[in-house]
């Protein structure tokens, strides 16, 4: 018994990592179908878009997420592109992180093309703008003052859709993807001065920061990480990879929690079995 506990205490990290890798991979081959409960902040974001934004409204879509977190947000981006076309939203896209250009052409624009959206009439892509927070502030004041051409090189004044769009007040809301604090810059530079609602769509690390804004009433809601992407895609009834990833992440976390619990049980047995606790814990 003691040797089993010792072995567990000094468990080779590779065993733990392989266990997690197997649990994360398994749902891609054998769907588990874990329940998908909705978090209140996601429900609030969906409720806002469904009930407070009219069909055909003009929306700013910011794709300032780094590619390193794209596995978390890819499903959410595709779902967002699809949803915007279903509601007939006019979309102005931009990004304050260079990877956003890739995300636009791979995850967003294909949905627009499938829905028969016409460039310049139904959607426009402004491209990458440097300067992050400063750029977000300038975008709120005047798009034309900030840039004269879109990403395709068309003059802004030549695009029919942009005739009545220039500043923050011309947008119904902002959907801001981000792996940093760019969605937060929209709260500071678009919501606080102009009252434009912001829906941050961040990777999971950003959740606690945006929950603070949600509880303060600064944002209608937020969608974050794989879980947010999965809930959003599941709500829309889309067969997204984000839903499969929920199973994957769920099982990965479950095995990790199991190991943590077993590790603590082993430690407590050792402790109350009289062994010196200083020697417990294995190699760092």
């Amino acid at each position, binding site marked *: 018994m003691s040797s089993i506990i010792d072995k567990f205490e000094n*468990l080779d*990290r590779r065993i*733990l*990592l392989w266990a*997690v890798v197997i649990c994360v991979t398994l749902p891609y081959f054998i769907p588990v179908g*874990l*329940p*998908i*409960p909705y978090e209140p902040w996601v429900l609030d974001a969906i409720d806002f878009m469904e009930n407070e934004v009219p069909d055909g409204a003009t929306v700013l879509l910011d794709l300032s997420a*780094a*590619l*390193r*977190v*794209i*596995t978390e947000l890819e499903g959410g981006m595709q779902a967002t592109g699809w949803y915007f076309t279903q509601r007939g939203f006019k979309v102005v896209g931009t990004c304050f992180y260079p990877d956003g*250009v*890739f995300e636009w*052409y*791979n995850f967003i624009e294909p949905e627009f093309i499938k829905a028969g959206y016409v460039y310049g009439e139904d959607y426009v892509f402004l491209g990458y*703008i*440097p*300067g*992050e927070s*400063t*750029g977000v*502030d*300038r975008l709120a*004041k*005047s798009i034309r*003052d*900030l840039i004269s051409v879109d990403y395709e090189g068309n003059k802004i004044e030549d695009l029919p859709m942009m005739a009545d769009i220039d500043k923050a007040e011309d947008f119904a809301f902002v959907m801001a993807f981000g792996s940093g604090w760019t969605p937060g810059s929209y709260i500071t530079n678009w919501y606080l*001065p102009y009252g434009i609602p912001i829906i941050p769509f961040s990777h*999971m690390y950003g*959740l*606690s*920061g945006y*929950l*603070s804004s949600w*509880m303060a009433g600064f944002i209608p809601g937020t969608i974050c*990480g794989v*879980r947010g992407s999965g809930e959003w895609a599941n709500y829309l009834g889309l067969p997204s990879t984000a839903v499969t990833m*929920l199973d994957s*992440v*769920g*099982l990965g*976390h*479950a095995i*990790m*929690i199991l*190991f*943590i*619990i077993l*590790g*603590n049980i082993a*430690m407590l047995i050792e402790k109350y079995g009289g062994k010196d*606790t200083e020697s*417990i*814990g*294995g190699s*760092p």
Partner: protein
Amino acid sequence: MSSLIRRKEITIAIMLFCAFFVFADRAYKAPILLDTSKWVQKWVLAISAVTMIVTFISSIIRNTRRIQTSLSEGDGPDAGSSIVGQWFYYGTTLVASVLTVAVGLTMGIQSNPYQWMYQYVFQNLATAIASFLGLFYIGAAFRAFRARTAEAAILLICGVTVMLTTNPFGEAIWSGFPVIGSWFLNWVSIGSRRGMGLASSVGTVALAIRVILGYERSVSAGGE
């Protein structure tokens, strides 16, 4: 002329000018403040764009020097350097940087080769590195989440409960997990985060006032 440009009073005056108009633009809606603030911000964006070129050139110079160092035989000024023999890594960085810029400039960033590099090389490497971090977190969590002391036990309970809250598995086990986890997220986590946020915001305002009044000289005068 050179000494005149380097005078710190000029730097302080530029900082004061920029900080005043950007700060005042938020406080008062006057056209002159708005226009000047927009003009200042336009410069910030232009400088931001130029810094990317500076970064690229700096990266090329740095990696070239490191290749020279790592190819040295270990004698002379580079003796004992930890990068000796590691020229391959710096060479890879150098070639990848130059190749990406060359393909982008000559074929365009919408071209197939550029898109291929972005999608099948950069994206995969970026997500792989993020995934490696996940494996380190898992290993660290397994070693660190042990209830050896009361403080460690609190950390363990908070961590595990929030993990069970943020993935659907927790609710499938027991519907109480999301309730407890949400309490930790909404009250404990957000409360402390707001406290830190408010403190840093007050500090930022104080810094802005110091810049406007010309007291903040450390950024322009090398720590004086």
